[in-house]
């Protein structure tokens, strides 16, 4: 039974999505399937047939980074980077469900993603900054 993660990395050769634990604990393999954040290591590939799949490769548009990616760069939210694709996917999912999260909501949204480098502080800052930027951009476009 192939896992969605195997199809993404081996067949589609999209290696931005990482395998950490392979058992749903670390979130390195997070992708957005039919609009929902999932651990691709736990999704049987057959259950993704015909579905809409968004991986880390589809987060930036052309040369323009997503605001979450920008703020990870700006705040130092990535160190070794192995958790980063999953963190970014979880953050993108959170900001869609909850555009103005407080710190507790950010921590809840990222609770399934482990990082061994940053101590999480700068990751939380990155997501908070991405949310603020989105608000600014919306206000600027309105005025």
């Amino acid at each position, binding site marked *: *039974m192939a*896992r969605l993660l195997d199809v993404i990395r081996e067949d589609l050769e999209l290696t931005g999505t990482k395998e950490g634990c392979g058992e749903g604990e670390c979130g390195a393999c997070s992708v957005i399937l039919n609009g929902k954040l999932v*651990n691709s290591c*736990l999704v049987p590939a057959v*259950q993704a047939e015909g579905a809409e799949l968004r991986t880390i490769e589809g987060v930036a548009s052309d040369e323009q980074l997503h605001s979450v990616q920008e703020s990870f760069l700006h705040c130092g939210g990535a160190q070794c980077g192995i958790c980063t694709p999953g963190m970014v996917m*979880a953050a993108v999912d959170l900001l869609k469900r909850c555009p103005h999260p407080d710190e507790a909501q950010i921590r809840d949204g990222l*609770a*399934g993603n482990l990082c061994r480098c940053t101590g999480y502080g700068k990751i939380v800052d990155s997501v908070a900054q991405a949310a603020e930027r989105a608000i600014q951009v919306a206000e600027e476009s309105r005025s």
Partner: protein
Amino acid sequence: MRGQVPGCTVHTPTTLIGALEILFAEKGAWRPLAGGTDLMVLFAAGVLPFSRFLNLWGLDELRGIETTSDSVSLGALTTYAEIRTHPLIAAELPNLVQSAWVTGAMAIQNRGTLAGNIANGSPAADTPPSLLAYGAEVQLQSLAGSRWVPYENFHTGYKQTVMLPEELITRIRVWRPKGDNFHFFRKVGTRKAQAISKVCLAAYARAEEGRVAEFRLGMGSVAPVPMRALTTEMLVQGQAIEELDGQFIAGAKLALMEDIRPIDDIRSTASYRRKVSANVLGQLLEEMVERFKRA
């Protein structure tokens, strides 16, 4: 590719009847597969003793939360995320929402299902205490027909259930609370997210004319199966709220320590589980008294 095991078959029926026919024709040969959050972990580790999976994920007949004036019926494939965001469940059956909140993290909550959580049969699962507190019922269906089983009779032993190999869980039904009621849920684990419970406790109570007219206490991780603490329930049920004082609560805590049958394992010890269960019960009863006196 750790997930690639030769000789594994996945069949995807397009209707519930189609699924039941396969289970009936080859009894015990097919393993139902829902969100996969329990099965895929074991599968990738290569420790699953079966290789034929019946993929239920596409069966819309097993989805949806339906409400009537008396009950809420949750399709077998209802996910934690769906429970978390359902306004009527949040308003009337808050323990279920709490159970969903504390289960894994978002990515697990988008895939894990209610039926999967109970069929898996873990004594440490987090929806069973709430289902027990609410007196839930489980609908089991096979080609031969369907039956409703009180959830408290569903588990017969460690990882064993009354479900026959040709049956599927189709729905889980909970009655909508009436009158003046109180709800309590508490999971004790090593960290807030992604931790397996050391103790999980859910309670539902209803007051009538100054007495506790109904009291149910569901517990997880304190016995080989999720269990109701029946002796403790009987002690509290029928009591005048005025009489639920410190001395009474101390007695109830002792009763609960006798009610449960915890073990030592990698997550905790039996004596810690007894002590924590009793302390959480104490907190629960104090909150309940305060809440009912306010009404």
